[in-house]
């Protein structure tokens, strides 16, 4: 906003340096055909937030924030979302590599299956998880009898539900980056004697790091906001499975003002974390 005029841009050519010529080009003027829908889009995204802010019971805020249940739910949300992101990274990056770098029959079907949690209503996803990993689920029955592990109604169950819905965001993002990355670097590594695994670790992974990071952030944000699959698969118990979105939903039933407060806390924390992360990568990229 402050430096939109061409003269201003010309007066500060050094900003961004020669490494970022695109930044200077943008300042030369934005065509209205792009600016107008962009601003409309921004307003569309920000307006609901303004609604929350306007409706927030500011005078009552200290009393509501003093409730230890709020912090308990927030702590649980942050730890489970982070754990789910870790799970998604460990399983999702290799899966994305498999989809982008190998040829096998049924690969297109597999790619479609990976996006399944995006299409499935989360509550249905939760029921599906119960049918698979529940006490009487096809795999859960075996988990229970062989290891005595039951996932529903546990914090681990929350992580499972969040990882399930967040996984596609990482896989799609990493796969896209892999396809855009030049495979000749890996081939060069191979000609120099690196095994495929070494090439993946030493060449591919550093190459696609920005895509992995972007996917991880998307997955983390999705896990943090997860509601349907979590409440269906892991239930709702304060301190164990009640994450912030669950607390918000239940507060909405009898105390909408508390729900607004809780939403704002969740939003403030996630925006802070995301903004901090974003700055770090754009500096690195």
């Amino acid at each position, binding site marked *: 906003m402050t430096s939109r005029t061409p003269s201003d841009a010309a007066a500060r050519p050094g900003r961004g340096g020669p490494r970022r010529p695109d930044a200077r080009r943008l300042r030369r003027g934005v065509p209205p055909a792009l600016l107008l829908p962009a601003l409309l889009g921004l307003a569309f995204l920000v307006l609901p937030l303004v609604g929350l802010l306007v409706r927030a019971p500011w005078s009552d805020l200290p009393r509501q924030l003093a409730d230890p249940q709020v912090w308990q739910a927030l702590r649980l949300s942050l730890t489970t979302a982070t754990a789910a992101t870790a799970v998604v990274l460990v399983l999702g990056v290799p899966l994305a590599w498999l989809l982008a770098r190998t040829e096998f029959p049924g690969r297109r079907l597999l790619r479609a299956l990976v996006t399944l949690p995006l299409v499935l209503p989360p509550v249905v996803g939760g029921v599906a998880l119960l049918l698979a990993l529940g006490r*009487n689920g096809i795999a859960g029955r075996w988990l229970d009898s062989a290891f005595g592990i039951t996932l529903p*109604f546990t914090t681990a169950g929350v992580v499972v539900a969040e990882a399930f819905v967040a996984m596609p965001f990482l896989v799609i993002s990493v796969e896209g980056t892999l396809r855009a990355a030049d495979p000749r670097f890996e081939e060069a590594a191979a000609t120099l004697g690196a095994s495929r695994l070494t090439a993946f670790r030493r060449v591919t992974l550093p190459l696609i790091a920005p895509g992995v990071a972007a996917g991880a952030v998307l997955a983390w944000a999705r896990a943090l906001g997860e509601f349907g699959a979590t409440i269906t698969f*892991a*239930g709702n*118990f304060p301190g164990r499975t009640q994450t912030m979105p669950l607390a918000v939903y239940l507060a909405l039933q009898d*105390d909408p003002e508390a729900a607004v407060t809780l939403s704002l806390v969740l939003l403030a924390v996630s925006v802070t974390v995301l903004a901090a992360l974003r700055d770090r990568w754009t500096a690195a990229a």
Partner: protein
Amino acid sequence: MTIRSVRRRTVRLAGGGAAALLALTACGSSGPSASSAASAGKPSGTVTVFAAASLKEGFTALGRTFEAAHPGTRVVFDFGGSDTLAASITSGAPADVFAAASPRTMQTVTDAKDAAGTPVTFVRNRLEIATPPGNPRGIRGLADLAAPGLKVALCAAEVPCGAAARKALDAAGVRLTPVSYEQDVRSALTKVELKEVDASVVYRTDVRAASGRVDGVEFPESSRAVNDYPVVLLKNAPNAGAAREFVALVTSPEGAKVLTGAGFLAP
């Protein structure tokens, strides 16, 4: 103060949307307009009923009865949590009739002056324990739910079935820690149907609706936590004439017969 003024603004906005919707539906419906037909005394057109989720089976049957008795009418239902429905109505949703699962949720609507007339209690519901078929853990009453190792799901205290369950448990002097406080009665029931929990406390009508997939266990303390179901005609009803007839059917002996068949108690 600020909250109230904001809410008023929201209502006005939503009202505008509702008016637009109404205009659209008016264009869509053929034949004479609903209001003129109503003043002529013959119900016609579409009646939109917002009803608590537990009324699904009973009201669906009553809707069919109504349509058969008044050719040219159609009854459309929105079944959901009473709180959610009440919030939609106070935000200007174009509904004719509201049937709630608790007087408290009905009060949200009457307080907002969105009701035409006084709500009438037409049925009552009481709690039952739902267990997997055959009651494998041999549960006979609320006290058995506190047994160690038993997994129980209760409704959250914020929703009507949870408040009622808490009242009944207090009356029985039973203290128990469930594995989950479910967000509504149907999800508490689902957990039993999937055998993920050994028991949950739900409405009698829910046990009836899921008969074959769950067994019901009655307990005496349920009489201490009986839920009243009020019904009312809404002030901004798009089809008030036909809607009034539907409310009359719900509160009639014939309506009571259908609803008690679904497991409700007469008021």
